[in-house]
């Protein structure tokens, strides 16, 4: 079994905080898995995602993603890892307001090393596949929430990363748009990509992922795989 994410006794304490955001978290996620990380506000879900994405550094412990020990990588190498191995999807889309839908996706491809022409072509293909062929030249402000999130998904996929990290991807969407995005993520997981879904909604976690991890106060409270193994 190939592991794509490994966390070993990870601890994260923010400068201003009295208590750790993550405290001794150990996890292994295999390539192709779909995992939901759940928990109430302040449980450490987003901190976990930031550490796996290399957006933040652990205070202690080891984080390994796609075979790379993140603690050993400088900022530049972390950025390169994100370009090729990690696709990020956020609750509030995080599209660049001054770029069109097409440019938002293409710029990620260019950062990934593609030529301008290839980037535009790939971005256009992806957006068309996601039903946004009419919105290629629209700025984010002109798009609906669902459309924005699909642009964000296209951007996450444009460099064909093996790992997708989605932080409350339906949190800012209406029910219909949210269902569409979840269907998309499920399809991508079925196609072989690893999916880590951050959510506070247990039912969404159960319907979308095969494994659910519950965080409480920065610790793993429940890991459904471990629970299943334990029952067996």
């Amino acid at each position: 079994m190939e592991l794509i994410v490994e966390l070993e006794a990870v601890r994260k304490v923010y400068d201003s905080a009295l208590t750790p955001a993550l405290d001794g978290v150990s996890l292994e996620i295999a390539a192709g898995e779909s995992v939901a990380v759940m928990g109430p506000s302040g449980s450490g879900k987003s901190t976990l995602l930031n550490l796996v994405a290399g957006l933040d550094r652990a205070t202690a412990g080891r984080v390994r993603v796609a075979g790379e020990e993140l603690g050993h990588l400088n900022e530049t190498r972390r950025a390169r890892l994100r370009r090729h191995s990690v696709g990020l999807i956020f609750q509030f889309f995080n599209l660049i307001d001054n770029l069109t839908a097409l440019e938002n996706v293409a710029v990620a491809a260019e950062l990934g090393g593609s030529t301008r022409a290839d980037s535009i072509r790939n971005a256009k293909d992806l957006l068309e596949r996601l039903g946004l062929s009419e919105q290629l030249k629209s700025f984010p402000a002109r798009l609906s929430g669902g459309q924005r999130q699909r642009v964000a998904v296209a951007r996450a996929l444009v460099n064909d990363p093996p790992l997708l990290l989605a932080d409350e991807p339906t949190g800012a969407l209406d029910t219909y748009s949210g269902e569409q995005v979840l269907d998309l993520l499920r399809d991508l997981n079925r196609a072989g990509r690893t999916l880590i879904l951050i959510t506070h909604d247990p039912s969404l976690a159960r319907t979308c992922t095969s494994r659910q991890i519950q965080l409480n106060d920065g610790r793993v409270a429940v890991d459904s795989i471990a629970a299943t193994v334990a029952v067996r």
Partner: protein
Amino acid sequence: MTAVLTKAVADVRRRRLQTGVIFLVTTLSVLAATMALSLLVESNAPYDHAFNQAHGPHLVMIFDGTRATEAQIAATTRATGVTEAIGPLPTTNAQIEFTRQRGQKGPAAALRINANIVGRAGPDLAVDRLTLYAGRWATTSSEVVLSDLLAKGMDTSVGDTIRIIDVAGSPSLTVVGIAASISRVADAWVMPAAVSSLTPVVQKSGRVAPPQTRWMVEYRVADANDANAIATVSRAISGGLPSGSVVGSISWLDSRKSADLTAAVMVPFLVAFSALGLLAAAFVISNVVAGVVIADRRQMGIMKSIGFTPAQVGSVLVAQVLIPVAIGSVVGIPLGTLVSEPFLNETAQALGLPTVFTDATLVYGSVVGLVLVITLAASIWPSIKAGRMSAVSAIAVGTGPSSSRGAGTIARLSRLPLRPPLRLGVAALAARPVRAVMSGVAVLIGVATVVFAVGLTLSLHMVASSLSRDQQVQVDVQTAPDRSGPPLSALISTTPGTSRFVAEGRGQATVPGIPSPIPYYGYDGSSAWIGYAMISGRWFDAPGEVVAPSHLLDVTGLKIGQSFTATFGGESEQLTLVGEIFDQTNDDLLLRGSWSDVSRLDPTATIDEYEIQLRPGTDARAYASTLQSAGGPSVSARPVSSFSAEAAFLLIEGVLSGLALVLAGIAAAGVFNTVVLGTRERRREIAILKAIGMDPSQVVLMVVSSVAAIGFVAAVVAVPLGLVMHHQILTSMAEIATNTRVPASFYSVLGPTQLAGLTIAGVAIATAGAWLPAQWAAAERVSAPLQAE
């Protein structure tokens, strides 16, 4: 009001970076404005200011002690029209020998100079208070205080010794002080009792006569601005003395005329610099203030929602800007005064003035007033606009996707064939076009100033070099017409180190358009090498040809190539004007040509000067000393120094460099502010880009490229602007100074490489200003902005 103050102070405390930026920019701007205004004030009638400060003498008279008694001379201090006086001060004219001393390179070589030595009890007498630059006053008869001009010219400092060589025993004196007098009559001062021992004994018909005694009195008179009134006082003074008692007299009006001319030369570039400094300060402060107000709109919405009135909202914004501006002014004014001081002192020295007087109150008041007006002007309109904005739309600023500001321009820029960091950086300019333009103007002013400063400095070096001609002529020899012994030209030829030389004599000629005769210099031998810069035409190369300065051409209406008849004492000669030269000798009314022509027109003229070019590596001072010893007492050889020509330019160069640095600093601070505000506004965008794989170096590149592009565009405009300023100011300075035109070569001091380099200076200034905030942006944690709504 309390709520407004509480909120404003809280904002100032919370936003340390913003407050720091306003403080920094204000401090630099106030520093530049203080410097600029101080120099401008100083350049306004500096001689009058210095004269008042020194309580200078309106009339200085020298009396022959063999014709009038000390008591008779003392009685002149009560003459009609005299309001105050010091003297009689014993004075003598003696030959001082300066010998190369400690710390100086090369072989020992002595130089002699005739100097006025005045007996004076101290620097602070009632009239003509001296400025003691170094050391102390003489307290024994073996000590001397030198004038600053003599000390500089002879490279002498406190602790050195000089000898009075035409006095029995050639007494040595120790230099204990360097001082300056507004009257500039004395070259050195000693204790009054020491003067008699330093006075040469005059040889008369083989008999030794008693030492020649002279007395000097410095008068202040009632109606000092009227030349006739001064002349009347002068007559009243001499009228009460035996005939022939007055040896010489100097009116302050003559000295003032000369000093005011030097000051007038400096005014064009000081005005230009002051205007640039104030303009740059205004732009940068406006940019900072407007940026802060724009960036604070969301806070305004929140304030309004909790009950602040529009006026209170506006007041909070203005107050939070005014607090750091006030602190910046309080720090900037003393800093500006401190930085100005060396320049002001140099101004005084370059003008030949002993002390400096600056109306500080006027300067400080003007600077504070200007800064307040700029700050209020820049902050009030955005504050009023912000106050009128509805709370909902104010709060909405910064939340959710913003409308695509400058979308069309961004779309065009995003098609540029550049890598994403560069493309995104350049495209960011379109999001805040006004801010980009304001930063661009600050950089433009900075670069234009640098171009102007570099250009003018190089031009002034050429002017100084051309005036002193020390690159071409290293030793100048003057000889008495009745000198006996072997020909001096033979002596010069055989003196080791001589490369080439030319003999020179001076006659007189009357030319059409000038009523009185003017000097006509003739050269015996090849003289094309002696270094006069050509404005137009060429140097003469045959008898019958002459060259002349611009002033002569303007006064006579002569053109290059035109022939005219020069006359003198019944003789006449047909001459052709073949060249216009850059020449500052003799009020710029003179001719230079062949010695054969001069001697034919004015048979009384004699060769009395030699200009010598030395072989490379020859010590000019040692050479002059050798030649002087070999030539005997009627030969005076001196190394040509660029000091006198460059002294006035040193100040200009110092001020140019100082102000150029400050203005470049202000421009960089303006860019710094723009980038800080820009990266703060683009915090989320930068976080997104980092999240999708932009690495820190690419973030730095993106941020820097946004302002480097501004810097480049600004520099492309600024370089020609700086060159135009350089051209105009140099032309004005030359016209004011000496009614001369300037050789084309003095303008063309910046070649394509230097101009390209100066264009890069715009990018460098912008990059310097952007570097730190770009690093901050690259290092900032991205998780928080990504998770914010």
